């Protein structure tokens, strides 16, 4: 079996739920990581002072010092670890506060403990957690500016989908897929995967619709020059785009727009096509 060797990291688990700490610690230790535990915010802060941590799994609802305050201190340290927040408090205000304080990801409790291994794998694979600027943090209007990296794409998608966690599963999954495809397009083609360039994302929630706007720093694209995309395929040649991509030396793909069109109710580009809005109606 072909598999990727998992790098070993130093993880601190901070939660006043002792049973949960032990379950997570066992899973992560079995996965090869070095794991420490802290039962409250004060203990976590003392441990953070000595440094050497790669990842912190941090409950928000801690006795004494709150998880959000521990997050702020952790991210302000000389070698800030990646911080993954855990909480059963799924209010948008809490989520946005965590994002603003540069939490790397947000896990809503209860979650399958076994999922933590994959989350830590993602954290390990991430470069030093890049900053996301939260321009607007109202639940009805979230606006984010972020560097053009695919790692950021995963993070933002994770947070944005948590904001819509109260919606039906089918709606959430459709929105999540569409959001991911368009954001990745913006980062890869508009931003050229350059972390020095920024993508701007707006997420609006009205009574009867969700609206997402993604603006990338690129020059846009020409709708008449999309032979490398499946939406330009002749009806009787559904694989033509793949052949064009091979000829042009592009990576396999070209299906994102076609997928997105089927997942959302409206898809609107600006004239240059470096900004896109998609809408999902809520019925």
């Amino acid at each position, binding site marked *: *079996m*072909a*598999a*990727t060797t998992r790098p070993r990291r130093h993880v601190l688990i901070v939660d006043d739920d002792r049973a949960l700490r032990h379950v997570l610690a066992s899973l992560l230790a079995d996965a090869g990581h070095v794991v420490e535990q802290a039962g409250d915010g004060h203990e976590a802060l003392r441990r953070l002072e000595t440094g050497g941590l790669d990842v912190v799994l941090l409950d928000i609802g801690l006795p004494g010092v709150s998880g959000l305050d521990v997050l702020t201190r952790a991210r302000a340290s000389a070698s800030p670890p990646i911080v993954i927040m855990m909480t059963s408090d799924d209010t948008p205000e809490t989520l946005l506060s965590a994002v603003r304080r540069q939490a790397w990801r947000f896990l809503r409790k209860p979650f399958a403990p076994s999922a933590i291994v994959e989350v830590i794998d993602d954290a390990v694979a991430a470069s030093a957690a890049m900053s996301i600027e939260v321009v607007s943090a109202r639940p009805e209007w979230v606006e984010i500016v972020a560097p053009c990296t*695919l790692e950021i794409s995963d993070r933002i998608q994770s947070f944005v989908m948590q904001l819509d966690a109260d919606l039906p599963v089918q709606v959430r*999954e459709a929105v999540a*897929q569409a959001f*991911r*495809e368009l954001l*990745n397009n913006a980062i*890869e083609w508009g931003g050229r995967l350059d972390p020095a360039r920024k993508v701007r994302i707006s997420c609006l929630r009205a009574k009867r619709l969700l609206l997402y706007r993604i603006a990338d720093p690129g020059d846009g694209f020409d709708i008449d020059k999309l032979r490398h995309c*499946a939406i330009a*395929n002749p009806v009787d040649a*559904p*694989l033509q785009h*793949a*052949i064009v*991509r*091979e000829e042009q030396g592009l*990576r*396999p*793909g*070209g*299906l*994102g727009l*076609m*997928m997105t069109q*089927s*997942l959302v109710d409206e898809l609107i580009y600006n004239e240059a096509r470096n900004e896109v809005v998609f809408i999902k109606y809520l019925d």
Partner: protein
Amino acid sequence: MRIAERQVGDVTVLELEGRLILEEGEFPLRDCVDRLVGEGRVKIVVDLRKVTRLDSAGVGMLVSKYLTARRKGGTVKFLHLTARADELMHVTKLAGVFEIFDSEEEALRSFTPGAAQA
């Protein structure tokens, strides 16, 4: 992305486990199929039951490796699509191109000359 490889006669069954998405999973799949085709093993079944996430890049890689095998006189067939994967195959019009099966037995049998397609 983990890939478990089994040989059943002259057919190679690849069981994918994990995420088949942009910058993750697509490259192991590419390398695996390219190696098989290079060895002349061009009858391939890809089992997607344990694929936890699939995006356009992942589907694009499935298309690419299907073409790779076809050019060498073989093919790639697909098995155990999740509901999400099945939906993506339909919206991208690939469901009319790929052979997709719900049972491994049917998938393997389909390689037999003259066998009825599932």
